[in-house]
């Protein structure tokens, strides 16, 4: 089994707020991230695909196709967006790094031309990242 990882970057803004909680509780839980005007990050995404190298091509999957899928399914949806207001998945879920990683998995699941999705690693900053291995992980 080969594990292949492709990186991609996107920039987006967000804020953390749960409408079921009071203003005080939101401020206590989320601190600076609760500012409703939002703030932004340069996210670094690593998508890891697993599979066997095709004997004919020597590849797990065509990197060009993977890049196109990433662009179409993920980057065009998330890049330069205010996640809370512009991405439907985050209308009812807080766009934390955890939830964005889970959502990116859903965006890509079943869309790969070959191989199987293994891991989504999403860096919010150099010092914070989340790994998600799907519902089984």
């Amino acid at each position, binding site marked *: 089994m080969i594990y292949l990882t492709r990186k991609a970057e996107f920039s987006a803004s967000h804020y*953390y707020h*749960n409408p*079921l*909680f009071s203003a005080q509780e939101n401020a206590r*839980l*989320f*601190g600076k991230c609760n500012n409703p005007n939002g703030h932004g990050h340069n996210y670094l995404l690593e998508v890891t695909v697993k599979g066997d190298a095709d004997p004919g091509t020597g590849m797990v999957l065509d990197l060009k196709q993977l890049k196109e899928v990433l662009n179409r399914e993920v980057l065009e949806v998330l890049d330069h967006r205010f996640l809370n207001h512009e991405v439907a998945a985050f209308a009812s*879920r*807080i*766009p*934390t*790094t*955890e*939830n964005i*990683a*889970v959502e990116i998995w859903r965006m890509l699941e079943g869309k790969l031309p070959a191989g199987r999705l293994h*891991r989504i690693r999403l860096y919010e900053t*150099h*010092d*914070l*990242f*989340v*790994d*998600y*291995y799907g*519902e*089984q*992980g």
Partner: protein
Amino acid sequence: MSSIAHLTRRYYFSASHRLHNEALGEEENRRVYGKCNNPFGHGHNYALEVTVGGAVDPATGMVVNLADLDRVVGEEILERFDHANLNACRESFASRVPTSENLCQEIFRLLDDRWGREPALGNARLERVRIEETSANAFEYGPRSDN
């Protein structure tokens, strides 16, 4: 749906140490540890990665609140080891050489002991500790890590 996510946070501390085993002779210590056996010690800028895993809380979208994780790691690890001589941290290294292998396991133990006394950490599970001693050397300890 389970939605188990694994969150890793990086921290930094600087400390000195000397690799020396009292049970070995001077010559043997020099042979085993080389420059690291210099009696006056030497230092590193350590990067520490702490990985916690758990279900994403639907109310907060989080595995763990970073403010709580930062507080626990700050109090247990950074206050203890930052700008310290590890050999002088007797509670941790009275009978063990402060290699990064041992430091990794000690940091895991210290955090694991604290975990039970921290209801704020909720269902998040301590999974892995990783230390970069330099940009070329990294050490991981995660006895419960699945991935």
